């Protein structure tokens, strides 16, 4: 669960991009974060991930009954619009995660192989990660995150600059991830199959955050 209070953030001595007095979120839904260019969508997601420190206010995540301030490595993950892939093979990128989290031997191998299979990357396992197409890169970044079974994924325009097929593949993967119990907040400019599946909308406008919750397509 997320609890944001009195949050304000801006750059240097500029006025705050927005002020969010209170935002409680159960951390279960698929959320579409909207806003014009420069409205601070990326900044907001980075603040939630703990990659930036807010100028004012607080952000608290309740994970497993404990309330913590971000960053929450392995639990609340932010994926860059252009995900950073390590300069190694596709499988090597997943092996890094396995190593960092203390998985060794057969356990690590099995988990990596299963995740590559699940994300449709098994055929590319030995390929250099940076030679993948845009859609495959995003799938690899999602696979890397999924390996940790995170509680929340914060996705910064995950389908921007992808072709139709890649958007469909990435959307399917994100939906599958969400179905496993991982809450997702994704920013996107254009409506897509993915944004239509969202059950909550957060809109950054007029220096504030407007929240709309939908249940079976009806605003509540």
């Amino acid at each position, binding site marked *: 669960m997320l609890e944001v209070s009195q949050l304000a953030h801006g750059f240097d001595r500029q006025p705050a991009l927005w002020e969010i007095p209170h935002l409680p979120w159960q951390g279960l839904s698929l959320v579409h974060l909207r806003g014009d260019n420069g409205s601070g969508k990326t900044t907001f997601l980075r603040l939630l991930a703990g990659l930036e420190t807010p100028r004012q206010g607080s952000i608290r995540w309740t994970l497993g009954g404990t309330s913590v301030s971000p960053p929450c*490595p392995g639990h609340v*993950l932010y994926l*860059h619009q252009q995900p*950073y892939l390590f300069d190694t093979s596709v499988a090597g990128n997943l092996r*890094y995660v396995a*190593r*960092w989290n203390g998985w060794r031997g057969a356990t690590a191998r099995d988990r990596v192989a299963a995740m590559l299979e699940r994300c449709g990357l098994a055929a590319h396992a030995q390929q250099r990660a940076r030679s993948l197409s845009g859609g495959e890169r995003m799938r690899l970044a999602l696979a890397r995150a999924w390996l940790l079974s995170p509680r929340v994924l914060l996705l910064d325009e995950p389908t921007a600059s992808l072709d139709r097929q890649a958007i469909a593949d990435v959307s399917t993967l994100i939906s599958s991830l969400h179905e496993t119990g991982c809450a997702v907040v994704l920013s996107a400019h254009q409506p897509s199959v993915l944004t239509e599946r969202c059950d909550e909308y957060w809109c950054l406008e007029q220096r504030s955050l407007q929240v709309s919750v939908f249940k079976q397509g009806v605003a509540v």
Partner: protein
Amino acid sequence: MHELMNTAREALHLLISLDPALWEIIGVSFRVSLTAILVALPPALLIALLLARVAFPGRWFAISLVNTFMAVPTVVVGLVLFMLLSRSGPLGELRLLFTQRAMIIGQILLAMPVLTAMLHSTLQSIDQRAWETARQLGAGWWQSLWVLIREARFGVIAAVLAAFGRIIAEVGSAVMIGGNIEHFTRTITTAIALETLKGEFAQGLALGLVLLLLALVLNVLLGVMRGRGHQTVSV
């Protein structure tokens, strides 16, 4: 011209026949320079990381200082070390003057600015997302640091090659604090200087050829590293 050809032929013969005196000098040069690089690399890497990744007051001055030290002539390093290590100097008690250890110290001082400046530039160009991604995916501080260095590996190797090229070819500090002692502190460059003064051009030329060959190998390797590094960044 005829004399030059004869000298060149003689030099090649010395090299190919594995002349013990010649290869001993080459061995000393490589031992001293490789040790200096191995000792200089860890602190240079640490300083470069600090300069590239940590914001602190005076950071830009520190960077300028490192860049300035790159231009220090080798004889100046030799002179300062000579004054420090000579019997009447503050470190005279250590009795290091005219030893390989003294030469290693001199070469460390010469390698450090080159290594630090090149490593700083390499590490600064690494994408901030690499660190953020590693940390978010569960890497500890040291693991993230190691990933960062691994991502910059071609630049790191290029820095090592460039610094090695500089110190193995330097003569000023080696002759001043090594003393050019036969079978002990005589290196390729100090031997060339001595043999030329003695009129023994063949050995000097043979050693010169070794340096030239080394320069060629290092440049080819640097080119390969630059190519790979460029590929890494642009893909």
